[in-house]
């Protein structure tokens, strides 16, 4: 949990843990360096009659003050790398089996979400298209397929600690598993034109009952008609 930001996905804790560890490891060096720095400034301030010393930096007893930290930093770096890569692989490179799938289509300046609907399969007649609001069920693993219709956008859910850019011409897959019910922001984290400042959405994480109810209300085999994109996702269509 970073500051006040709730953590609502299975890996948000890992990211926060990594941030904490980086804080500890780099914080140590930061305060060590600054402390030494200010102490030297005070200790060796100009005083009448005191001449500065002639030090080349080759003296072993002084050089160790560089070499030892140098080595320890290397060790710290290795620790940070290992932890960072482990989190990265968990979030971005492994795809746990999915309970459900959702397609996320970004465009200037709105999100369109394709829920799999009652049958739990995407690209079938009963899919539910929504604009700017994503309905998911808590404690279920979701795969998402991220696409963009025009420029680069970025699907950012702070409470999930999840961010992924949407590149036009590519379908980028990822996953998340909500652990906490509630309604949170979905942000576009890549500048995408004058509407970037209003391009937001919200993710509604529901209990199984609420979700089932919502699906039953909305998931009906619609007759062929205008696509969700055409009918709803204008800049004005973005929330408030």
């Amino acid at each position, binding site marked *: 949990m970073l*500051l*006040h930001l709730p953590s609502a996905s299975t890996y948000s804790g890992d*990211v926060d843990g*990594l*941030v904490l560890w*980086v*804080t500890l490891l780099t914080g140590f060096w*930061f305060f060590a*360096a*600054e402390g030494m*720095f*200010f102490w030297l400034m005070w200790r*060796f*301030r100009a005083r009448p009659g*005191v*001449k*500065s010393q*002639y*030090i*080349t*930096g080759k003296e072993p007893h*002084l*050089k160790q*003050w*560089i070499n030892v930290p*140098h080595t320890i*930093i*290397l060790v710290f*770096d290795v620790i*940070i*790398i290992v932890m*960072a*890569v482990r*989190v*990265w692989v968990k979030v971005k*490179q492994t795809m746990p089996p999915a309970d459900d799938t959702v397609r996320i289509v970004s465009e*200037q300046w709105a999100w369109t979400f394709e829920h799999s609907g009652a049958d739990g399969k995407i690209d079938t007649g009963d899919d539910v298209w929504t604009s700017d609001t994503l309905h998911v069920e808590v404690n279920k693993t979701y795969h998402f397929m991220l696409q963009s219709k*025009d*420029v680069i956008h*970025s699907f950012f859910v*702070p409470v999930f600690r*999840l961010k*992924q*850019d949407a*590149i*036009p*011409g*590519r379908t*980028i897959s990822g996953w998340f598993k909500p652990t906490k019910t509630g309604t949170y*922001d979905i*942000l*576009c*984290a890549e*500048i995408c*034109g*004058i509407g*970037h*400042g*209003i391009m937001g959405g919200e993710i509604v994480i529901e209990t199984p009952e609420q979700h089932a109810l919502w699906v039953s209300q909305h998931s009906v085999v619609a007759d062929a008609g205008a696509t969700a994109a055409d009918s709803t996702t204008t800049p004005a269509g973005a929330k*408030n």
Partner: protein
Amino acid sequence: MAEIAHEHGHLPAGHGHAESNWFIKYLWSTDHKVISLQYMFTGMFMAMIAGFMAYVFRMQIAYPGMNVPFFGHVSPGAYNSLITNHGSIMVFWVAMPVLLAGFGNFLIPLMCGCDDMVFPRINRLSYQLFFISAVVLIVSWFVPGGGFGGAWTAYPPLSAVGKYNLTPMGSSLWVLAVALEFVAFLLGGINFIVTAMNARAPGMKAFDVPLAVWMIVVASLLFMASVGPLIAGAVMLLFDQNLGTGFYNPTRGGDPVLWQHLFWFFGHPEVYVVLLPAMGIVAEVITVFSRKKMFGYKTVIYTVVATGVLSFFVWAHHQFVAGIDPRMANVFTVTTVIISIPIAEMCFLYIATLYGGSITFTTPMLWALAFIAEFLIGGVTGIYLGASGADIFFHDTYFVVAHFHYTFYPIAIIGTLAGITFWFPKIFGKMMNETMGKIHFWGTIIPFNFIFIPMFFLGMEGEHRRIYDYTNFPDLANPWAVSMRITSTVALVVMLLFQFIFLFNFIYSMLRGPKAEKNPWKSNTLEWTADSPPPHGNWREMPTVYRGPYEYATPGRETDYWPQDERA
């Protein structure tokens, strides 16, 4: 190429330009000192514009929808073009011209003991191209549609397609200006490198060269080696914008990610292109005012070279979540975190230089010390972003904004001010006012931290960048976040107001300041053996070098400094 051939720029050293008219003397001169001043003043002028832009959009963020004094209502389009041009200007038209070209032009010939750059006329051409690029950029704000608003990284398709960015002319002019600026600095860079390699004073070996020159030269090398692909990419982007090609258009076989790579392949070394000159300036200042030899002069150079080499292997950490293959991210995490080692060692060596010194806290020294203290913050927060796992969350949040301002601000503002206050006596032959200098220092440093520390916390709250009004996002509109935004905006306004003290001090000292003698700081390097200000041609007879640049408090001498050109 044409320029390479005229090596024989101008009249004999010492005479010639002195008696020629004002226009030749100040606008058409091939004298490296005049060109350096042209770069510095252009940079300072652009800095004022970019500072004003920062004021406008910070006001809009803190008080959404208000009528900003001296600007008016900030529309979303205007906001985007303000942040875009603020970033572009601060990097390309302030940091580079002042630190690299300004100080490079002034210091390299003076510190290497030659009468001018090896190609004075290319030098003039380089400034003229740079000046044109600045004009083109300014024009781009006033064309139909307004200035480019696609962020300084200019990712296509947003930057490539007029119907997406709504500023077709502005974007083309922006790309054109940046490309021109690159060519200008390529010409300047060749001049710097060749001058420092080939035109050193008799007896000056590679390891007798002051760190400032070393670092400016390495910076020019980094720039020259990294910018090429982006120049090509900029041409392709111009074609996409104006001729309807599809280099970056996925539906026509192109690839938007290509631009990101070409941009950051240059963009990351660029960070070190501006960092190193500032580091070099700081090295000169702290050695002089702690009366100390640089702690491990050669080690510093090795760390600089190591940083330069590594900087070519880290660029994709700007793209971890930008659609590149996740497997690549692991490689770039390793290289990115590893580059912290030479940088950290460099900082340690600077800190160690204070050991056993006799430190006087003059204004330049305050700036130099502040550079190290603040840059450390920027350095450690970089690790968060280099660690791919954490970058998933931090990417494009205000944490990033705070981080790179904690690196760029010390570089472009603090380092520059250290250099200006330090060499002011040499540049203008007048001393600056210490009292005003110290007031300006504290009035800048304290608000600076109040501007950017809140941004770290906002970033941790998930506040994303380049948003003109956070009331659109319920989670980000909470009172705490609002108070944070207002804090940093108020601090910014305070800091900007304090800059007028500097301006006054600068102009007043330039005109009315007390006369400066040759070597007011009792420094060793060659530029202090010339008159202040140095005449055209710098020396009546060229200096010869007998020792390294940092011989302070050498045992067995009554004076605590030993100029490089003083015969033993």
